[in-house]
């Protein structure tokens, strides 16, 4: 009971901080006191945070390393953007966005589920490579996917625009490597924060529920979990699907915040998957609030370093290594404990609990 309270407390603190930050940011933005850079980063940061929270569910609680979460983000982004583009003129903004959100999330969940069925039979690095492979397949297929619409309806091709055979007046929805251009800009900071809060609550409640306990048991010792009668495959599927769905939400936000949605290695390929993994590990495996903090810090960092010009990415990489050592090296952790430089002291109340070992 006590432990449950502790983790709930932590969630409440996290949410409180987020809400306060939200209010401060909104006021600053509204009064023009927020720089364009910061204001432009609000939504992407939330989107990355969401994907990181989703991945953390997979890495921290299911105990499986996924290098393909950007793939689920990609699915969420493209399906929702496609929907929004297709019905741009026929459904009013609000219901269309809600529908797009639902569709993006469900599609990511569906892909998560379909991938999970075969993939979860594997373990460890084999699972990692298969998820990576999946992400790359998605990216590759989207890059050669051409969809257009004209008075005859939808046209698809995985070759090029010409083979769509569209009328000249037709509209391109997905244009291969150019992706989707002109998705309505509907992701607002408010929506993003709201979704992030929901995701944090959902994941928190999930890992502290009967199913979540079972998922953790499977992570800790699969054979023992089987001998106490847990349907291992089912729960792995459930956890992986939820994890993919949350990543999909991040994708929806991302897609509706940018005019040019393309699938490249950097934004939806393994580079992004790895970046998200960096957030998860740096923020603490199993620590959802930590993921959010790490996502915020690491998204901001290279932007803040812009003044350093060409040294920017070099410094960034050094900071990343140092942060990792600072947060994970046993010797440094011991030293920090002795000198009271704990995570708690650094980031206020965001402290690691026992369950996050």
């Amino acid at each position, binding site marked *: 009971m006590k432990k449950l309270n502790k983790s709930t407390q932590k969630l409440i603190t996290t949410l409180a901080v987020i809400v306060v930050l939200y209010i401060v940011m909104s006021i600053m933005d509204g009064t023009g006191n927020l720089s364009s850079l910061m204001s432009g980063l609000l939504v992407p940061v939330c989107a990355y945070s969401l994907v990181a929270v989703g991945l953390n569910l997979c890495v921290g609680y299911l105990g499986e390393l996924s290098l393909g979460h950007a793939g689920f983000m990609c699915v969420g982004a493209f399906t929702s953007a496609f929907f929004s583009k297709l019905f741009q003129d026929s459904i009013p903004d609000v219901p269309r966005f809600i529908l797009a959100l639902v569709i993006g999330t469900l599609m990511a969940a569906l892909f998560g589920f379909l991938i999970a069925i075969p993939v979860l039979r594997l373990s460890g690095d084999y699972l990692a490579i298969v998820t990576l492979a999946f992400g790359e397949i998605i990216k590759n297929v989207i890059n050669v996917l051409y969809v257009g619409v004209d008075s005859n309806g939808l046209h698809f091709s995985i070759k090029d625009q010409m083979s769509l055979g569209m009328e000249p007046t037709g509209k391109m929805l997905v244009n291969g490597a150019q992706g989707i251009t002109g998705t309505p800009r509907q992701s607002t900071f408010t929506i993003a924060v709201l979704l992030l809060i929901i995701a944090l609550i959902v994941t928190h409640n999930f890992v502290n529920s009967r199913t979540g306990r079972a998922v953790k048991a499977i992570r800790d010792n699969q054979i023992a979990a089987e001998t106490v009668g847990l349907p291992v495959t089912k729960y792995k599927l459930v956890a992986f699907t939820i994890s993919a769905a949350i990543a999909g939400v991040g994708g929806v936000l991302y897609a509706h915040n940018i005019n040019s949605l393309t699938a490249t290695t950097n934004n939806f390929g393994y580079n992004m998957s790895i970046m998200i993994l960096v957030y998860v590990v740096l923020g603490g495996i199993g620590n959802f609030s930590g993921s959010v903090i790490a996502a915020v810090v690491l998204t901001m960092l290279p932007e803040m370093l812009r003044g350093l010009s060409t040294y920017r990415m070099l410094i960034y990489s050094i900071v*990343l290594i140092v942060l990792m050592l600072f947060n994970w090296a046993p*010797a440094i952790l011991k030293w920090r404990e002795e000198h009271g430089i704990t995570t708690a002291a650094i980031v206020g109340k965001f402290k690691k609990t026992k369950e996050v070992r």
Partner: protein
Amino acid sequence: MGFLTYLVNGLSLGSVYALIALGYTMVYGIAKMLNFAHGDVIMIGAYVVFMCMSNSGMPAVVSIVISIVCCTALGMIIEKIAYKPLRKATNLAVLITAIGVSYFLQNMALMIFGSNPVSFTSVINWEGLSFADGALKITGNAIVTIITCVVIMIVLMWFVKNTKPGQAMRAVSEDKDAAVLMGINVNATISLTFAIGSGLAAIAGALLCSSYPSLTPYTGSMPGIKAFTAAVFGGIGSIPGALVGGLLLGIIEILARAYISSQLADAIVFAVLIIVLLVKPTGILGKQIKEKV
């Protein structure tokens, strides 16, 4: 003849993957970490060869030896600074640090060598073999790469199986604490592993860029990922697996491009990978250890 040509192309691409994968597998097998910076060490190795050969006019062999020395030192330094402090932390932490190191090497190279590609002079001067009146050509690069690969594989297997340091590596890979109780210096062993892996990276760099001659600070990252895939494909941790995985990956990639779709070749390669892993969950030559209860 078409098929044979593609097969040969696949083999030569695959042999480069295999060569890189050997380094990956070496480090993974012993230190149990995915060294995502391996591809970037390869890039550094290639630059060193380039500087020696094209800028200073040294002979290819000397350049490669210098590059091996540099990369070995680099690998050991990286290990000492970035990985060793995390020895007792979760494997994921080291994985992330390796990513940091990868960024670092790329950006360092960007500062030093600039962003413009340089055209790499092949370290091999031999034209290669030509069959059926030139209809089927096997380049010297390909032949040398494949032979290098096989030789390295055999030497590594022999080394791990029959020498004391090799034995120590196997013990360390199984259980670091228990290895200490055997009198094995775990730190030295892991450092040696990195030294060997990085030395191989230098050779891989030279041969990679000999076959695919454009060198930029980012040259190592994609082959690195592909080789990682190849290593898993063959059964990660297995030395012959790296060779088999690399070769197969190259062949599949080329055949997919040749016969199915050049646009979707990447997707097809990964799809085949997924299917193979579903049938053989520990890769082609990976040993499947069932946990004894």
